[in-house]
C-alpha cells in the first residue's frame, strides 16, 4: 500500500540525484551570489523534505512529529540564508 | 531487603550524610569569611575552609555512589554481592583515609602536609579539587579498584540489566579519569588541560551515567513502569550526555592556552549539554505520571522528581548561561561560576544520592518506607534545602552579574576587592540562605529518628 504512494522511493531517489548533480555543476561553475544561495537553500529544503517524507516515512506520521523535521529544515535553511545575507551587507 | 549483602550500603550512606553535614558547616564558615575576612583566622583560613568544603563534597558523594552501587547492584543482578567483607573493609579504609586527609588540611599548613606525605616523590598536590596528598590519591585508587572488582564480579556473574551496566560503565569511567589526577605536567596549559579531564569528565561525563542509572533504578522501583521503557530512556539520555559532554569539555579550554578551535567546539557542544538533563526531567515526570502503583515511599518519589528538575536548572540552565565563549570571556571565574557550581552539584549529585538514600534507607532498616511523620519531615527538609539552594544560586548570580558589570565589562573596570565590597550585600543574603539550608539539613537528619505508626504507612500504601 505504501509503495503505491506517489512519489515512491525510487522517484525520490532520482530527484535527489538530479538535484545533487545540479549542486555539483553550480559548484564547478563557481557560481555564487544571493540568487545562487537562494536556489541552493531551496534545493536543500526540497531534498531534506523528500528524505524525511519518503525515506524516513514522515509522510504517514502524525503532523506534529513531521513538523519537527520540516521545522528544523526551514529554521536551519532560513537562518543560513539570513547569515549569508548579513555577509553580503 | 531482597539480598542480605545489600546491608553494606548502610554504613556508606551514614558516612555520606555525616560528611555532608561537615561540608555544609565549612560552607557556612567560608560564606561568612566572604564578608568577615578574618573570621576564624588563623585557625581556619579561607583557602583551607574552601578545600575542606569542596573535598568533603566529593568524598561524601563518592560514599553515596558506592552505597548506591552496593544497594542496587545485588538487586539488579539478582544475587548476593561478591564480597560484603571486602566492601566493609574498603569502607573503613576510605573513611579513615578521608578523615586523616581532612584533619591534615585543618591541622598542618598545606606546604607542611605536602612535605610530610612525600609529595616531592610524585607531585600531584596543589590543584583545585585535587588537593589530596598523593598517598590519599593512591588510597582512592586502591579503594576504587577493590570496589569495581567487587561490584564488577557481581554484575558479570548475575543478571545483566541496562541499569547495572550503565552504572558500571559510569563507575569504571570515574576510576579511569581519576588517573589523570596523577598526571601533573610542568607546562601549565597541559596541566590545566588534563586537570579538566578529571573534573569535567567526571561531573559532565561519567557521573551523569551514574546519576542516570540510579534515577532509573529508583523510578523503576517506585513507579512500577516496564523495565523496557525505562531502559530505553536511560540509553538515549546517556548517549546524549556523552555526545554533548565529552566534546563539551572544550568550554573549559577557552582561555587556558589551548588552540582556538576549542572556543567553537566547546561552545557548540556544551550548549547542548542541557538536552540530556531536560530529557531526564521529561523522563522522570513521565514515569511518575504513568506509574502503576502508589509506592508508600512518597519522599523518595519527591527526591527523584526534584533531582530531575534541579539538575536541569542547575547543570543545564545555569551551565548554559555562561558556556558560550563570547559570554564566558566576561564571566569565567566570577560568582556566576559559583552559582552554577552550587546548584548543579546540589541538583544533580547531592539530590540523586539523597534520592537513593531516601529509597534505600527504610528498606535497609527493615521497612518498606519510613513512617508518615518521618516522611513528612523529610519532605519538609527537601523543600527547605531545595528552596534555600535556589536562593543561594540567585544571590550568587546577582553578585556575579554585578561583578561582571563592574570588574570586567565596564570601560573603567574596578579592582577585584573594590567590587567584592560593593557586592557584599549579596554575600550576606547568601549566608542567610545557607543557614536555612543548614536548618533543612538538620530536619533531614532528624527525619531518620522520627518514630510513628508504621501501620498507617502500610494502609496508606494500599489506599
Amino acid at each position, binding site marked *: 500500500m*505504501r*509503495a503505491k504512494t506517489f512519489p515512491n*522511493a*525510487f522517484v525520490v*531517489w532520482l530527484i535527489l*540525484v538530479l538535484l*545533487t*548533480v545540479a*549542486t*555539483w555543476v553550480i*559548484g*564547478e561553475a563557481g557560481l*555564487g551570489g544571493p540568487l545562487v*544561495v537562494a536556489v*541552493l537553500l531551496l*534545493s*536543500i529544503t526540497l531534498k*531534506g523534505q523528500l*528524505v*524525511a517524507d*519518503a*525515506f*524516513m*516515512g514522515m509522510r*504517514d*506520521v*502524525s503532523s*506534529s*512529529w513531521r513538523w*519537527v*523535521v520540516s521545522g*528544523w529544515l526551514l529554521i*536551519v535553511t532560513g*537562518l543560513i540564508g539570513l*547569515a*549569508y545575507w*548579513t*555577509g553580503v551587507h | 531487603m531482597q539480598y542480605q549483602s545489600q546491608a553494606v550500603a548502610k554504613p556508606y550512606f551514614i558516612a555520606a550524610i555525616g560528611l555532608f553535614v561537615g561540608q555544609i558547616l565549612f560552607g557556612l564558615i567560608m560564606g561568612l569569611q566572604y564578608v568577615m575576612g578574618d573570621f576564624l583566622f588563623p585557625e581556619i583560613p579561607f583557602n583551607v575552609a574552601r578545600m575542606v568544603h569542596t573535598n568533603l563534597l566529593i568524598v561524601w558523594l563518592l560514599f553515596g555512589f558506592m552505597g548506591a552501587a552496593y544497594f542496587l547492584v545485588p538487586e539488579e543482578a539478582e544475587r548476593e554481592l561478591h564480597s560484603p567483607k571486602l566492601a566493609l573493609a574498603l569502607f573503613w579504609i576510605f573513611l579513615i583515609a578521608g578523615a586523616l586527609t581532612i584533619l591534615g588540611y585543618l591541622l598542618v599548613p598545606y606546604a607542611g602536609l605536602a612535605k610530610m606525605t612525600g609529595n616531592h616523590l610524585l607531585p600531584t598536590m596543589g590543584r583545585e579539587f585535587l588537593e589530596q596528598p598523593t598517598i590519599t590519591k593512591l588510597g582512592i585508587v586502591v579503594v576504587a579498584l577493590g570496589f569495581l572488582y567487587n561490584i564488577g564480579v557481581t554484575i558479570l556473574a548475575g543478571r545483566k540489566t541496562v541499569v547495572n551496566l550503565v552504572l558500571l560503565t559510569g563507575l569504571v569511567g570515574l576510576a579511569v579519569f581519576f588517573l589523570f589526577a596523577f598526571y601533573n605536567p610542568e607546562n601549565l596549559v597541559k596541566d590545566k588541560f588534563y586537570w579538566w579531564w578529571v573534573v569535567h569528565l567526571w561531573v559532565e561525563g561519567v557521573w551523569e551515567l551514574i546519576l542516570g542509572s540510579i534515577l532509573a533504578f529508583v523510578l523503576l522501583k517506585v513507579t512500577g513502569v*516496564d523495565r*523496557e*521503557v525505562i531502559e*530505553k*530512556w536511560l*540509553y*538515549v539520555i546517556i548517549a*546524549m550526555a556523552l*555526545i*554533548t559532554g565529552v566534546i563539551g569539555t572544550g568550554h573549559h579550554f577557552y582561555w587556558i592556552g589551548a*588552540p*582556538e*578551535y576549542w572556543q*567553537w*567546539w566547546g*561552545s*557548540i*557542544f556544551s*550548549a*547542548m549539554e542541557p*538536552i540530556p538533563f531536560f530529557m531526564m526531567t521529561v523522563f522522570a515526570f*513521565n514515569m511518575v505520571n504513568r506509574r502503576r502503583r502508589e509506592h508508600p515511599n512518597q519522599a523518595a518519589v519527591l527526591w527523584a522528581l526534584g533531582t530531575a528538575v534541579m539538575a536541569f536548572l542547575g547543570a543545564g540552565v545555569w551551565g548554559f548561561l555562561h558556556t558560550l565563549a563570547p559570554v564566558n570571556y566576561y564571566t569565567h571565574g566570577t560568582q556566576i561560576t559559583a552559582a552554577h557550581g552550587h546548584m548543579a552539584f546540589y541538583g544533580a549529585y547531592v539530590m540523586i544520592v539523597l534520592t537513593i538514600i531516601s529509597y534505600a534507607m527504610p528498606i535497609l532498616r527493615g521497612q518498606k518506607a519510613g513512617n508518615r511523620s518521618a516522611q513528612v519531615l523529610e519532605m519538609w527538609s527537601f523543600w527547605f534545602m531545595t528552596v534555600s539552594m535556589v536562593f543561594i544560586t540567585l544571590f550568587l548570580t546577582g553578585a556575579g552579574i554585578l561583578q561582571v558589570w563592574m570588574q570586567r565589562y565596564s570601560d573603567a573596570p574596578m579592582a577585584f576587592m573594590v567590587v567584592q565590597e560593593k557586592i557584599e550585600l549579596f554575600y550576606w543574603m547568601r549566608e542567610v540562605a545557607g543557614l536555612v539550608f543548614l536548618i533543612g539539613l538538620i530536619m533531614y537528619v532528624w527525619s531518620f529518628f522520627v518514630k510513628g505508626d508504621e501501620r498507617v504507612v502500610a494502609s496508606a500504601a494500599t489506599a
Partner: protein
Amino acid sequence: MNVLWPVQLQPDVNAIATPPAPRRVRDLPGDFAIWIFIYAELLVFGVFFLAYAFARAGNVELFNEHQQFLDRTTGAVNTLVLITSSLFAVRAVEAIRRGAAASCSRWLAMAVMSGGVFVVLKLIEFADKQEQGITLSTNTFYMFYLSLTFFHFMHVLMGMVILSAVAVKAYRGAYSASRHTGVETGASYWHMVDLVWIVLFPLVYVMH
C-alpha cells in the same frame, strides 16, 4: 509497537462526537527513543551549521577563498553514495514488512557497503588535506570544514555499526513482517545521517 510515547499529543476528543475517519496517521517508524535521539542530533548539527554560517558572515572573503580548494567532486559523489545507501535502507524496511528477512538483510548489507564507500572516499579527502598541512588551527574555515565533516564522518561509522547489527539480526531471522522495530530504528538513524549530509555538502562545499 510504540511503548515510549511520552505525551498524548492529540487527545481524541472529536472521536466521541464524530465517527472515526479512516486513520492514515501512524506512529513514528522504529523505536520512539531513536527519534528523541535523532531530533537531538539534528539540533546539534543545526547549531553547528548556523555557527558556520554566522562565522562566515564575519569572514566572507576567507571562507570564499578557501572553499574553492575543497574537493567538490568527491563531496558530490559521496552525496550520491549516501542517498543511494538510504534507498537501500528503504528497500530493507519494505522487504521486512513483506516478511522477506533474507532480502532485508541483503539490502542492509548493501547500505552498509555504500557507507563503506563513503568512508573510504572521505578518508582519501582527509589524507589529502593532511598532506597539504591543513589542520583545525589553519584558519576558521578549515576549522569548520574539518570539524563538521569529521563529526558527520563519526556518525556514518556509528550508523554502519547500527545497520550491521540489524543486518546480522535480520539474517538470523530475528525480524518478521509483524515485528521489525529494530530495522525501522536502524534505517531511521541512517536516513538522519543522510539528511545531515544533504545540508552539509552544499553549505560547506558549494555555497558562497
